[in-house]
């Protein structure tokens, strides 16, 4: 399958981030046509396109929009989830830095469709460059009459705010994000009610990922049929894949959904030094890992599910045979432990216990019995936690054990660093083995 640069097509134009640059490539054409349509027609278009959320869960975007009650007399809000903090995910930040107007145009069209007069882009605070480029794009759009009162004479009013977060992975969870945006600690809310009914300030709110919203102008401009020529029936469209790890050319590769990891890997120049893939994760640390046996599975929501994993954020991380899977999994669990918001017991206590046992393995301690106990511990967390962070924390270990049981058993006597010289995994030249 070939690469299909669409959102990324003009990224080599250093002026793309400006209003004029974006317009010179057809930008804001979709907005002009959208504002002449009935908002419901746009919701219909997005529904028909089959676009699914790119934030990880793959929920159908048009369907989500249609849950917003209309004529309810309440203000509606659009909130863009630009918190991108999932380990391995690195595609929203590049989109915001390179093509911020695609996001802004998407925000205006989406707000119009769901009848929101106020939109927020919640950007993780640790990336000021993304925040300043998005804020700059908003300002330019405002100056050109594309944001504000009576946009392009349509009678539609919209305010857009770029909002900085302050460092908390949990704020990417949509209801925690809302609490955070209201100025509270970012802890998840009980669902239902779903945000579409009672979200920001208890009003109907649509929350979508950056890449999801950046798709909207292209779909509105070029049509459902055009969009559906990419991807599969259940996973239509294209994806901004970010390929990282021990590959020769890590980076951004935009391709239709359904491309295989082997094809993407070929575009990324293969594995460094021709080494084998040991394990890889299709989209973030929260999805189960796969091995070299799974490189030919189409990267779609449905095929990844069949393979026992998920497409997630569509940002594959590949590790070669120099890497200790014990160490990798331990590090991810340390992350979940650190980021657990503490609201519910299974996740707060569970991440603590799992991490403790894994750290023993990493240092060559622990027992064979604990290798099994840990599976039970993960089972206690999965499905019993208040939000999906708990489920995510229970994912890496059982997934790794499925393919690398021997390595975990060996770790009860031999530390990860003794099994695998850490220096061999480093990517810089001059790294010397101890």
């Amino acid at each position, binding site marked *: 399958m070939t690469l*299909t640069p669409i959102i990324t097509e003009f990224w080599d134009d250093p002026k793309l981030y400006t209003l004029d640059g974006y317009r010179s490539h057809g930008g804001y054409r979709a907005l002009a046509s959208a504002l002449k349509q009935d908002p419901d027609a746009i919701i219909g278009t997005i529904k028909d396109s089959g676009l699914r959320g790119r934030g990880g869960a793959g929920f159908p975007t048009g369907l989500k929009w249609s849950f917003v009650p209309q004529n309810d007399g309440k203000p509606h809000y659009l909130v863009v989830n630009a918190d991108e903090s999932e380990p391995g995910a690195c595609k*929203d930040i590049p989109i915001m830095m390179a093509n911020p107007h695609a996001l802004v145009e998407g925000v205006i069209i989406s707000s119009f469709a769901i009848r929101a007069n106020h939109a927020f882009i919640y950007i993780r605070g*640790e990336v000021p460059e993304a925040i300043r480029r998005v804020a700059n794009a908003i300002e330019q759009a405002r100056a050109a009459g594309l944001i504000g009162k009576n946009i392009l004479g349509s009678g539609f009013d919209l305010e857009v705010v770029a909002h900085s977060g*302050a*460092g908390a992975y949990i704020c990417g969870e949509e209801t925690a994000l809302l609490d955070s945006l209201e100025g509270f600690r*970012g802890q998840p809310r009980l669902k239902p009610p779903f945000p579409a009914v009672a979200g920001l300030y208890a009003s109907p709110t649509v929350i979508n990922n950056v890449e999801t919203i950046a798709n909207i102008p292209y779909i509105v401009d070029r049509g459902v049929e*055009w969009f559906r020529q990419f991807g599969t029936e259940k996973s239509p469209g294209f994806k901004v894949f970010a390929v990282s790890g021990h590959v020769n050319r890590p*980076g951004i590769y935009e391709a239709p959904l359904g491309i295989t990891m082997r094809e993407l890997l070929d575009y990324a120049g293969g594995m460094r030094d021709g080494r084998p893939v040991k394990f890889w994760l299709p989209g973030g640390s929260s999805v189960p890992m796969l091995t070299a046996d799974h490189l030919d599975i189409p990267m779609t929501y449905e095929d990844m599910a069949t393979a026992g994993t998920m497409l997630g954020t569509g940002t594959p991380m590949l590790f070669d045979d120099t890497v200790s899977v014990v160490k990798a999994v331990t590090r991810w669990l340390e992350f979940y432990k650190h980021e657990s918001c503490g609201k519910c017991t299974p996740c707060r206590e569970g991440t603590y216990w799992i991490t403790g046992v894994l750290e023993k393995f990493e240092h060559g301690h622990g027992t064979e019995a604990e290798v099994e106990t840990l599976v039970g511990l993960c089972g206690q967390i999965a499905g019993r936690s208040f939000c999906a962070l708990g489920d995510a924390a229970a994912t890496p270990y059982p997934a790794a054990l499925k393919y690398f049981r021997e390595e975990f058993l060996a770790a009860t006597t031999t530390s990860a660093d003794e099994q695998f010289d*850490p220096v061999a995994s480093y990517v*810089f030249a001059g790294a010397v083995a101890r």
Partner: protein
Amino acid sequence: MAITEATREQMQQLAARYPQPRSALLPMLHLVQSVEGEVTTDGIEACADVLSITPAEVKAVSTFYTMYKRKPVGKHHIGVCINTLCGLLGGDAVYDALSERLGVGHDQPTADGEFWLERIECQAACTHAPVMTVDWEFMDDVTPTSAVDIVDRLARGEQVASTRGPVIRDFRATEHTLAFPLDGLADEGNPVDAKMLAGLAVAKERGMSAPTSTKEG
């Protein structure tokens, strides 16, 4: 520096951006850090005052988020991503080298008030591993040697540019950007680098493009 009337006015401006003023609390705390170099009791009280909530409520929020510090950060914040991908690809060695160079550990300031070192989580830049940040601007693809060199240059007061962003200012300046992002630096530096263009380059090389209409497909 201290929280002045001017700071309070800026806080009011932030609050006015939102349908409900409390939504401005996170940017307001960034503003506090831009003035005070940390989240101080004065800063907490000013936020509480402007939003008509209690200082305890502000404090509860400020302690939840890792970017807010209760000790002076110093001139430059240095972050090293130690999440799995960066850490195992060399971030661990980068962190060790910086820790040795600065003589401090995780989430600690140096005695001279010049630097703060922090092991940070995934910075959404895994394609550029191992990743370091200075005042939260990207320093991509570092090695232990290049990372220490960056710190040495900063210590000597030399100009250092982010790999995907502007010339480094200082921690407080970045915190100000987080409160008021129109800092005039959007045109400085080009954050779109070869790795972000990797797929586009291959597509051009091999003559691949996406059909722009339905018919072509």
